[in-house]
C-alpha cells in the first residue's frame, strides 16, 4: 500500500515540476488534485509530518495577502516554509503545496519546515479537524459570492460548532477583534486566543455604507451604534448587555497613507512604526494579522519590520507593472466590501483624476452572479474618474451599473488586449492606471501584463 502511495506521490511531484517548466505560473493545483483522488488520507500524512507547525489562515478577504506576508516574514527569519501562497486554497492546493516537502521519491524530508496555509472558508472546519493546526487565524466574514457560499451565517455557525470543541484546546487562535461576527467563536474557543484590531479614532466613519452586515447580539439587540472603520468592522458594543469587543493585544494606531505608502504604529509605540507598500485600511488588517502571528512565533519586532521593508509583490494583489512609462496597478475585486475598500483607497490618493479599467467576469471562481456590483458603492468613485474602460464577460452589466451610478462616459471593450491598449493610450504620460479585476479576469490580465512588461511569473519569486 505504502509503495503505491510513494509511486503516486513521485508521479505527482514530477507532474508539478513539469507544469512549472511549461506553464507560466499556472496549474499549481493539478498535482494535488491527482494525489487527492488516489491517496485520500494524504491530509493525515501532512498532519503527522508537520505536527505542531501548521498555521491555517481563513476569512472572506485577505487570505492570500496575509499568507504571503507571513511566509515572507517567517522565511526571512531563517525558517523554511511550505505554503499554498498562490491562492489555491482547497484540499488540492494544500496537497500540491505539501509535495514541496517531499523528495523525488515521495519521502518527507522537510523536518525543519513550517506549513502556512490559506484555507477556503467553506472547508475550514473539516480541514482543521484533519490537520489539527497549531495556529488558526480568522480574518473576517463578509458577504461573498452568495451563489457559492450561501448566507454568511451558514459559514459562521459551521465555524462556531467546530471551534467550540475541546479538540482545539492546544491550538492557538489569532482573531480580528473588530469583527463582531467572529466574537462568539473566539469567546467559545477552548485554546488560547490572541486578539488584534485597530485603535484609531481618526478612521472612525459613520457614513452610508450599503455593505454593512446586520449583527445581532445574543440578547437580541441589533449591534449598530458604534465606531466603524468600514463595513461592520470597528469598536462594536451592545448597548443593552455587557457584550463588547475584547481589547486587542496587538493593535495598529496612527494610521496614515500617501500615494505610495501606508504607515502605522504597532501598540502606540513610535519606535514600532511601519512603512508599507499595500494601501488601504483593509491592508492594515492584513499586515496586522501577519504581524500578530509573527510576534506569537517569537520573531522580534525589528526582524518583522526588516522583512516587511523588503516586501515582495503579491500575485495580483496591488501588484504593479510598468508599460510604456505608465504604472499599472492591479486590484483583485471579488465582493462588495472589497470593492468598496479599493474605491475608498483610490479616493484617498492625492492625484488629479483616476484612470481605471474594470473587468467583470462571472466564471465559477468569480461567482456566477454579478448582482454584487449593486451592493458596492460605485457612486463613490464616479466623480474622481478621468478615463474608464469597461471589460470582461459581463461588461454590459457593469456599463449599466456605472450608468445608473451617474457615469456616462466610458468605453466598453470586451477584448482583453484592446481594452488594455485603450486605457494605456487614453492615460497621460507618466500617469498611473488602476485595474480592478475579478479573479479570472485578474489571471488573464496579469498574464498579458507580465508578457508586455517583461515581468517575471509568480512562482519564480
Amino acid at each position: 500500500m505504502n509503495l503505491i502511495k510513494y509511486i503516486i506521490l513521485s508521479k505527482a511531484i514530477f507532474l508539478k515540476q513539469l507544469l512549472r517548466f511549461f506553464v507560466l505560473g499556472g496549474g499549481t493545483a493539478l498535482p494535488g488534485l491527482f494525489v487527492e483522488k488516489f491517496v485520500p488520507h494524504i491530509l493525515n500524512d501532512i498532519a503527522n509530518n508537520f505536527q505542531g507547525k501548521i498555521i491555517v489562515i481563513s476569512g472572506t478577504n485577505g487570505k492570500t495577502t496575509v499568507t504571503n506576508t507571513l511566509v515572507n516574514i517567517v522565511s526571512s527569519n531563517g525558517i523554511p516554509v511550505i505554503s499554498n501562497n498562490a491562492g489555491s486554497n482547497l484540499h488540492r492546493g494544500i496537497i500540491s503545496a505539501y509535495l514541496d516537502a517531499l523528495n523525488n521519491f515521495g519521502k518527507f524530508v522537510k523536518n525543519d519546515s513550517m506549513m502556512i496555509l490559506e484555507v477556503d472558508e467553506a472547508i475550514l472546519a473539516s480541514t482543521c479537524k484533519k490537520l489539527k493546526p497549531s495556529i488558526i487565524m480568522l480574518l473576517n466574514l463578509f458577504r461573498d459570492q452568495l451563489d457559492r457560499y450561501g448566507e454568511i451565517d451558514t459559514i459562521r455557525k459551521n465555524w462556531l460548532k467546530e471551534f467550540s470543541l475541546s479538540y482545539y484546546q492546544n491550538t492557538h487562535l489569532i482573531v480580528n477583534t473588530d469583527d463582531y461576527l467572529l466574537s462568539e467563536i473566539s469567546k467559545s474557543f477552548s485554546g488560547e486566543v490572541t486578539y488584534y484590531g485597530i485603535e484609531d479614532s481618526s478612521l472612525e466613519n459613520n457614513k452610508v455604507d450599503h455593505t454593512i452586515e446586520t449583527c445581532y447580539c445574543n440578547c437580541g439587540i441589533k449591534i449598530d451604534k458604534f465606531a466603524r472603520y468600514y463595513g461592520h468592522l470597528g469598536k462594536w458594543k451592545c448597548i443593552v448587555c455587557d457584550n463588547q469587543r475584547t481589547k486587542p493585544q496587538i493593535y495598529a494606531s496612527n494610521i496614515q497613507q500617501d500615494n505610495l505608502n501606508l504607515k502605522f504604529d504597532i501598540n502606540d509605540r513610535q519606535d514600532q512604526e511601519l512603512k508599507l507598500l499595500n494601501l488601504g485600511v483593509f491592508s492594515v488588517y492584513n499586515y496586522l494579522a501577519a504581524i500578530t502571528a509573527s510576534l506569537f512565533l517569537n520573531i522580534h519586532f525589528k526582524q518583522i519590520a526588516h522583512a516587511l521593508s523588503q516586501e515582495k509583490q503579491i500575485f495580483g494583489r496591488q501588484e504593479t507593472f510598468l508599460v510604456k512609462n505608465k504604472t499599472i496597478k492591479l486590484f483583485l475585486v471579488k465582493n462588495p466590501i472589497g470593492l468598496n475598500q479599493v474605491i475608498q483607497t483610490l479616493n484617498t490618493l492625492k492625484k488629479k483624476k483616476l484612470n481605471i479599467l474594470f473587468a467583470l467576469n462571472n466564471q465559477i471562481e468569480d461567482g456566477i452572479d454579478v448582482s454584487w456590483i449593486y451592493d458596492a458603492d460605485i457612486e463613490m468613485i464616479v466623480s474622481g474618474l478621468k478615463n474608464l474602460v469597461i471589460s470582461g464577460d459581463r461588461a454590459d452589466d457593469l456599463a449599466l451599473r456605472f450608468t445608473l451610478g451617474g457615469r456616462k462616459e466610458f468605453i466598453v471593450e470586451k477584448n482583453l488586449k484592446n481594452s488594455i491598449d485603450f486605457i494605456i493610450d487614453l492615460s497621460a504620460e507618466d500617469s498611473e492606471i488602476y485595474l480592478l479585476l475579478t479573479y479570472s479576469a485578474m489571471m488573464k490580465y496579469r498574464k498579458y501584463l507580465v508578457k508586455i512588461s517583461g515581468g517575471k511569473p509568480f512562482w519564480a519569486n
Partner: protein
Amino acid sequence: MYSLNILHLYPDILNLYADRGNILALQYCAQKIDVSINIKYLFIGDEFPADIDLILIGGGQDQDQEHVSLDLIRHGSKIKSLVLENLPVLAVCGGYQLFGKSYQLSKKKILEGIGIFDCVSIAEPNLNHERFIGEILINAQNNLGSIIGFENHSARTYLGAQVEPFGHIVKGFGNNGVDSTEGAIFHNAIGTYLHGPILPRNIKLTYFLLNCAIKRKFGSFVELPSENDVIVDNAYNYGVNYILSK
C-alpha cells in the same frame, strides 16, 4: 412635474442581495420621464408614513427575516388596503415570502406573513436539499414578456387560488421547481425571487411600476421615452441570450 413617494421597507436589515439597485433603476427611469421621486425608509418601530405611492422590500438572511416579520405585521392591514387600491409593490425574495401568508423556517418555527399574496413558503431543513441558484428567465404577466434575473433561495413557495404567478419559467427554478411558476402578482403588487437586481436588468418592469403609481395617483399613464437606451438594451439583450444559451 409629477412627484412620487417610494417607501423602502427595512433597508438596513433586508439588504442582503444588492436589491438597492432597484432604487437606482427607479431613480434613473423617473428622471427619463420627468417624474421626481422621494425615497422614504421604514425601520423597525417606525410608524407607517402617509402619501406612499410605491413600496419596495428586499431579502435578508433567515435570522434577519425573523426580526422583521413581527414588525411588518403591525403594518399588514395598511399595506393590504393600499394594494387593493392598486398601489404598486415590488417584494423580492425574503420580502416576497413575508408578503405571503406564512414562511415556515423549520418544523417548529413559522413566521407569519401579511398575506398580500395567497401563498405559503417552506424552508427545507434537509441539508441535502437542493438550493435553487442560477440565472432565470420567465415569461411574465401583464405583457411584460421576458424578464431576467438571478435566483438564490432554499425555500419553496406554493401559490393558492387567490393569486396569479408573476410569470412562467423558461429557464430556472422559480417558486418551487415543480409547477413552473415564478413569483406572484395581485393587483399591482409583484412578489418574485428574481435578484439581479431585477429592475436595472428589466427596465420595462421599472417603467411598469412607475406608471402604475402615476396612474393611481394622477389618473393617467405617462408616455415612455421613445429613443433607444443602448446601455440598458445591451445589458438586457446580453442577459437574455446568455441565459437562453446555457
